[in-house]
Structures are given as structure tokens and as C-alpha cells.
């Protein structure tokens, strides 16, 4: 949610602290800040608070509680107009009250469509919204201010019957089509909820997602119908997803704001229209079959402290609820909070503990060690598996880890990420063979001459009969017998006994050194060493001359003849940023040979 500090400031008489302090206040007491620049702040409103905090009013309310400074005004606490229903200029019909929880419509006549006043344009542009015209801007402003999505239809584009327009909220018919405000046309199915001109039975909007172009506000518009409604979150989310049409409205509805909010949104909208476009509200109709109610939530001082591990007092807790504007009654140890309509997230005692914890600050929770627990922790099976690994490592095996997805198998994914690997592996065989092939190719980079890679993996496999943990090796261990298996089902092996009390080998790793993506080059060099030299100093000489492209230098042969010693080394060259050419490597070899010759070595 993009928030403007200037917009937030409208809610406070006192000047707000600087942007950094505001960001910290949110971060440590409410929501993470994704990005902050100048007046703009992108607040990552948590899912359980998206019902009331995807708007400036909600975030101002939070800030008021965190910083303990009063709100100048709260539009959601102001008395609602007793609207004069007047002449029935609008009929509203909701087909399924589970999908449309409330629909308020207002008819406003004699508006003048035109550019928005500078303040309104600026306010919207500050949060990255484009100004369109005074009416559309007003709907957006109220949504960003209070969180209630709104829509305005041109009333003259709807068919009037008996002096009244008709709005019906119903499922789309199979094959029904609608062109939305962007000009794009969508084919619909019965899972999509529509706003329909009831007198003509034509769709004028996709409920909670986007308005249709048929009743679009234009410069010629004089009479409008304002929609302030509440649609089921799941239905809206599925529609937005299916049509790939995620809008500011759909994002809000999918988080289930309270249907009570509709009336406050409508009130603010009618006031704002008066200011920016004139006109007269001639009637407001409210279809609200099942008014929403929230139940009080009770908890106790000791229950909150027992959950948080804190020693907060009743006074401190009461103060938290006061700051959050949550009416709270205290009776001895018991605290009872009656959530205001927009706080749909407060349902169980633990929710109240969270309010106390986050507002007073988690930095006030002192880290405490767990008391000792009776008995030894059960890690036997784990240790059994790890003991198997230790045995193999001791026998020269290297452990690898590979992906669980495979080209084919017994179990297939309904929605694979990689279409070439739609199945779950039935064995580690294929991945291990691939890993071995690659390991053999790059072996000189990691192993001394003469050592060939031997690999193993422990991982879950998924044959028809059911998943199990497989251990697989690329070859057998001669010491374990010629017929010792190279694969084992660790899910049926009795590893608990094998692991009980086993002390795992510990390894300490240093910093990671990325390997090169480019091919390496190999060269051998054999020399007769002069008297008084040994393999170590010979190796140092080579390394000094070779420079940084030499990544490995291994002695692989030594022999004596006629009182002289010969050493043979294998050199591995690799660059982190290019493929080495033969000329380049040969040049280095020539330099090494020259230096060695100068030092009394004889190149063989």
C-alpha cells in the first residue's frame, strides 16, 4: 500500500515525526516498510490487517496508537447521515447474499464532470495514481483514504423503467461478454459475479473488479449512480485471477473489509462529489441483507503475560487498547474488548495478546532460556541416517544433493513448474548418474590425479507404492564385500538402533569460494630436481611463476634414478571470467620451465 506522509498528516494536528521515525514506528509495531522515498512510503500491510489498513485512515489509526498521538478526526467514528431514501430512483437486487454482502447505490443528479481541483490531483499523483476526472478521482480518493472501493456509473446509460434504474447483482451467464473501461472484452462463465442493468439485463461491471465501458463517465455525464458495495473476497479473488485483472478494488475486496464500511465510504463520496463536481443526491438505496456484527473478546492479565512471557500491568494493557481505540472493559483480572466494526481480525484472546505485545514493543520481551526438559531428546533416527553418511565419507564418497523433479515417474504434478520435469523421481539413479558424469568431467578441479569421484545421495523418492528415503551410491565399497548393495531403503532400515548414542563427525567449513563457469586447462610437468630441493619447494616455485590462473597443483609421481629425483606435477588452470586459450596456458608453462631451468632443474 503506497502511503503519502502528507496525506497521513491530514489526520493529525500535531506534526508527524520525520519519515525514518514513521518507518520505524510501523516496522517494529505494525508492518514492514518495503520502500520509502521522500513523501512516499510503501507499507507491506499484513494479510490479517488488509481488511482495515489498505488505506490512509487505517494506517493513520495505527500510527496514532504506536506514537500515542491523537487523531484529529476519524471518519469511521462520525455519525452516519440518515439518508432520505426519497423517491425510489433506484432498485437494487442481490441474487446471492453470500457473494454480495451489501450493495448501496446513490443517484446524484446534475454533476459537472471536469478536471479535478489541484489538491485532489496532487494527492492522487503523490501515491502514483493518474488523475482522470473529478468523479473518477473522487472514487479513487475515497478508496485510498478509507479503503472502500467505489464506482460511478453514468445513470443515463442505464434503462429507466417507471422512473427508476435497476441494479442487479447476479452470476454471469455462460458465454456472456463484457467490455470493461480499458476497452478489453472478456468472455464470462457463471463463476463470475456481475453488476447488471436490471431493466435491460446487460452487464455494466464485473463485481468488485472493474466497471464496464457501457456506463462509463464522460464529459457529457450529468447524472450518476454511485456504487459502494461489498463482495465476497474469495469470489472476487478468483475472478481477478481467472481474468488476470487484479485491480485496486479486487485487492481490497479479497481481504474482506467489513460491509459496514460501505456506508462510510458512501458518506465520504457524496461529500466529496458535492465539493468537486456539485450535483444533488436524490436518493440512496441500501441492500444489506445480513448486517455484520463482531463479538466481544475476553482475556485475562495472566493469560496475556503467560503467552508473551511478560510482566505487563493491567494499566499498560488498558492503555494499549485505549491507544488503538478498542473499547475495553476491565473487571478484576479480566479484560473484554469490543472490536469496532473494521477490526475484523480480533477474534480470539491471542489476538489481544498480539495487540499488547506489538504496541508495547517486542523489545520489551526479555529473552528467556527454556527450563531443562526431562529425558534425552530423541535424535536416534537422524543419527542413524547420518552415521550411514559418515561411513560413506570415510570410504571416499562425496555427498550431493539434487532436485526431486524428474522427466518421468509414477507420480505426476498437476501443475509442474518445469514442463520438462513434470514427475517426482522414483529413484535417485538418474540424478546421481548425471552428477557423476559432470563430476568426472570436472574431477581435476577438485581431486588430485588418480582419484575418481564416488558419489552418494540420500533423498526421498516417490514410487507408486509410496515415498521412502533412498540412499544410493555410484559404486560399491570393496571392503564391504563384492555383493554389498549400492542402494538402500532407509525408511525400512532399523536406523534408530544404529544411531542411538552415535556421535556425529563434525565438520567446519570456511567461506565459500565460487567456482568458474569457464572450462579449465590441464598441463603436466616433470622435472629432475637439483640437489637440496624437495617436492615442496618445487611446488612453491611453480605456483609463484604460474600466478592466479593456477587453481590446483598436485604432485603425482616421484622417482629416483642415479642419485637424482624426478617430480611430476599436474597443473590445473582456470579463469573466473574467460575461457583460457592454449597460447595463454602454454605461455605460462614456458615461463615456469624457464624459471625452473634457471634454478637448476632439468625439464623432462
Amino acid at each position: 500500500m503506497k502511503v503519502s506522509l502528507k496525506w497521513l498528516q491530514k489526520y493529525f494536528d500535531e506534526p508527524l515525526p520525520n519519515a525514518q521515525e514513521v518507518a520505524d514506528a510501523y516496522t517494529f509495531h505494525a508492518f514492514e516498510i518495503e520502500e520509502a522515498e521522500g513523501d512516499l512510503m510503501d507499507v507491506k500491510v499484513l494479510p490479517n490487517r488488509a481488511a482495515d489498513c489498505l488505506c490512509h485512515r487505517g494506517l493513520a489509526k495505527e500510527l496514532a496508537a504506536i506514537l500515542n498521538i491523537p487523531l484529529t478526526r476519524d471518519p469511521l467514528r462520525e455519525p452516519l447521515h440518515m439518508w432520505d431514501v426519497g423517491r425510489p430512483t433506484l432498485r437494487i437486487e442481490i441474487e446471492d447474499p453470500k457473494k454480495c454482502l451489501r450493495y448501496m447505490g446513490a443517484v446524484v443528479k446534475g454533476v459537472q464532470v471536469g478536471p479535478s481541483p489541484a489538491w485532489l490531483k496532487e494527492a492522487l499523483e503523490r501515491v502514483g495514481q493518474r488523475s482522470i476526472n473529478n468523479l473518477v478521482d473522487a472514487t479513487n480518493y475515497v478508496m485510498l483514504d478509507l479503503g472502500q472501493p467505489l464506482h460511478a456509473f453514468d445513470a443515463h446509460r442505464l434503462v429507466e423503467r417507471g422512473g427508476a434504474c435497476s441494479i442487479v447483482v447476479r452470476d454471469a451467464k455462460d458465454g456472456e461478454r463484457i467490455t470493461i473501461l480499458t476497452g478489453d472484452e472478456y468472455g464470462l462463465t457463471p463463476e463470475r459475479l456481475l453488476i447488471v442493468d436490471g431493466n435491460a439485463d446487460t452487464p455494466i461491471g464485473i463485481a468488485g473488479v472493474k466497471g464496464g465501458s457501457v456506463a462509463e463517465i464522460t464529459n457529457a455525464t450529468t447524472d450518476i449512480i454511485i456504487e459502494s458495495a461489498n463482495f465476497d473476497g474469495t469470489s472476487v479473488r478468483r475472478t481477478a485471477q481467472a481474468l488476470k485483472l487484479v485491480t485496486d478494488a479486487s485487492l481490497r475486496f479479497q481481504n474482506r473489509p467489513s460491509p459496514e464500511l460501505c456506508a462510510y465510504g458512501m458518506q465520504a463520496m457524496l461529500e466529496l462529489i458535492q465539493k468537486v463536481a456539485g450535483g444533488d443526491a436524490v436518493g440512496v438505496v441500501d441492500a444489506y441483507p445480513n448486517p455484520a456484527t463482531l463479538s466481544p473478546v475476553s482475556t485475562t492479565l495472566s493469560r496475556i503475560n503467560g503467552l508473551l512471557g511478560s510482566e505487563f500491568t493491567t494499566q499498560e494493557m488498558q492503555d494499549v487498547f485505549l491507544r488503538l481505540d478498542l473499547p475495553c472493559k476491565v473487571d478484576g483480572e479480566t479484560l473484554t474488548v469490543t472490536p469496532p466494526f473494521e477490526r475484523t481480525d480480533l477474534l480470539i484472546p491471542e489476538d489481544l495478546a498480539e495487540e499488547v505485545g506489538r504496541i508495547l514493543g517486542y523489545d520489551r520481551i526479555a529473552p528467556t532460556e527454556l527450563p531443562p526438559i526431562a529425558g534425552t531428546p530423541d535424535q536416534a533416527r537422524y543419527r542413524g541416517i547420518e552415521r550411514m553418511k559418515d561411513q560413506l565419507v570415510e570410504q571416499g564418497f562425496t555427498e550431493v544433493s539434487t532436485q526431486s523433479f524428474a522427466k518421468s515417474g509414477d507420480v505426476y504434478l498437476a501443475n509442474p513448474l518445469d514442463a520438462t520435469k513434470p514427475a517426482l523421481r522414483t529413484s535417485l539413479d538418474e540424478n546421481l548418474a548425471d552428477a557423476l558424469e559432470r563430476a568426472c568431467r570436472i574431477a581435476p578441479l577438485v581431486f588430485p590425479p588418480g582419484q575418481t569421484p564416488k558419489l552418494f545421495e540420500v533423498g526421498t523418492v516417490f514410487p507408486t507404492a509410496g515415498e521412502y528415503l533412498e540412499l544410493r551410491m555410484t559404486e560399491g565399497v570393496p571392503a564391504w564385500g563384492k555383493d554389498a548393495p549400492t542402494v538402500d531403503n532407509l525408511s525400512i532400515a532399523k536406523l534408530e538402533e544404529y544411531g542411538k548414542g552415535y556421535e556425529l563427525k563434525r565438520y567446519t567449513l570456511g567461506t565459500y569460494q565460487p567456482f568458474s563457469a569457464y572450462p579449465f586447462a590441464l598441463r603436466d610437468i616433470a622435472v629432475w630436481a637439483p640437489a637440496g630441493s624437495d617436492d615442496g619447494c618445487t611446488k612453491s616455485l611453480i605456483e609463484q611463476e604460474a600466478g592466479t590462473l593456477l587453481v590446483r597443483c598436485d604432485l603425482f609421481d616421484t622417482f629416483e634414478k642415479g642419485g637424482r629425483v624426478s617430480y611430476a606435477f599436474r597443473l590445473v588452470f582456470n579463469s573466473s571470467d574467460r575461457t583460457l586459450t592454449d597460447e595463454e596456458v602454454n605461455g605460462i608453462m614456458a615461463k615456469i620451465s624457464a624459471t625452473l631451468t634457471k634454478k637448476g632443474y632439468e625439464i623432462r
Partner: protein
Amino acid sequence: MNPGRPHPLTVAIREIADIFGRMGFGIAYGPELEDEFHNFDALNVPPDHPARDMQDTFWIKDQPGKVLRTHTTVVTSRELERMAKEGRTEARVIAPGKVFRNEATDTTHEAQFYQLDGFAVGPVGTVTLAHLKGTLECFYREYLGEGVKVRFRPSFFGFTEPSVEVDAWFTAPGKEGKWLEMCGAGMLHPHDFSSVGLDPKKVAGFAFGGGIERMLMVKYGIPDTRLIHAGDIRFVYGFEKKTA
């Protein structure tokens, strides 16, 4: 014969298991191919929750109700179920294991990765958010280094209430210290207990969960998470040698 090498993830989980073992935590496993009930319903993730969409979770063809587990928190759920069956009111368990998410991969995201989940449960009032902080502070200090501090920020997870995001103050060698997001945590939601037959009026506890690869990347300076499960021995041998 030269010994081979265990995979760095094995090395990491050994350290983790050792530290938590000393704090009384056992180790548990569970299936990677899970059922919807344990992976979602039992953990207070309602049927119409976005996390259950095809775009986040891998579902299994021709096996409705089966998913690749999206978190090892599901092992917590299975362990709580076991506690209920065995009539216990106290347990401490960690569950390191592979999990799956249907999301695009990049240097910090993989569709399959390892998670470390853990929980401590006891009679109401004996395991608190303060114990969570103490436990994680002890763990990160031992795992990442003495200077590590831990802080909580408010967060939201369906299966914990309150929920927190856990940051650790870590100074990588040669770099300036900074706060890093390490895991999500909180106090187990009453639903987690009641859904598997435990009484939330009698037991309470904390739970935490975070990516193990992330810990490895932070500790050793690994630049790309995709290196870890690529089956490449250059990765396994890519660490400066230190004596055991």
C-alpha cells in the same frame, strides 16, 4: 584413501541438530508428499486461502487432496497429533526437511528447498514468547557467532498468534553488521492444537520456521541458492578448508 565430503547442508543440519539437542529438542520427519489436511487445514489455513492456489502449491495429478508439503510446519502438526495420541503435554522437536513452492526461481528462491521448523510445547504458561526469543537468540549465537542479537517484528502467519518475524544481527567476515531476516515464528494458534486433539486450554507453545539454505548463504557467503541442490561437487568442495 582420501575421505570424501558430506554436503554442506548435512554439515549445517548437524550443527543445528547439535545446538537444539542441547536445548532438549528431538528430530522428527514426515512425508514430503502430504495431505491437504496436515499441510493446510490443521494449521489454520482455510480452504479458500490464496496459499492453496495452484500458483503457490504443487498439487498431484489424479490424487485430489495431495500436495507436496509447502512447509515443514506440517511435521509440527503431525508431532502435535502424536502428542495427543500418546497423552503427552510436553515436547520439543525440530524438523529439518525439504519443502516445495510453485514459484519462479532466482538467486534467492528455489521451487524446492530445506526448511528448519521447530516447536516447544508445554502446559499453559510454561512456554512463552520470551522463551522463543531466548531459544532463537541462543541458537543464532551458537550457529552464526557470539555477536549475534535477535529482534522480533510483528508479522502474520495463520498458524501462530501472535506472529513475529525474526531478524538476526550478523556481521559477515570483512563486512559491516546488519539485520537479516532469518525466520518466521510465533505462539502456536489454538487451532493447531484443537485440530489434532490437544486442548489449547491446557497446552501452549512456540513454533518457528525458516529456510536452511538462507542460513548457509549468510554464514558462508554463498551467492546463489540454486548452487546448493544442483548435484555439483564443485559446490561441495567450494569452501575454504578449516580443520575440524
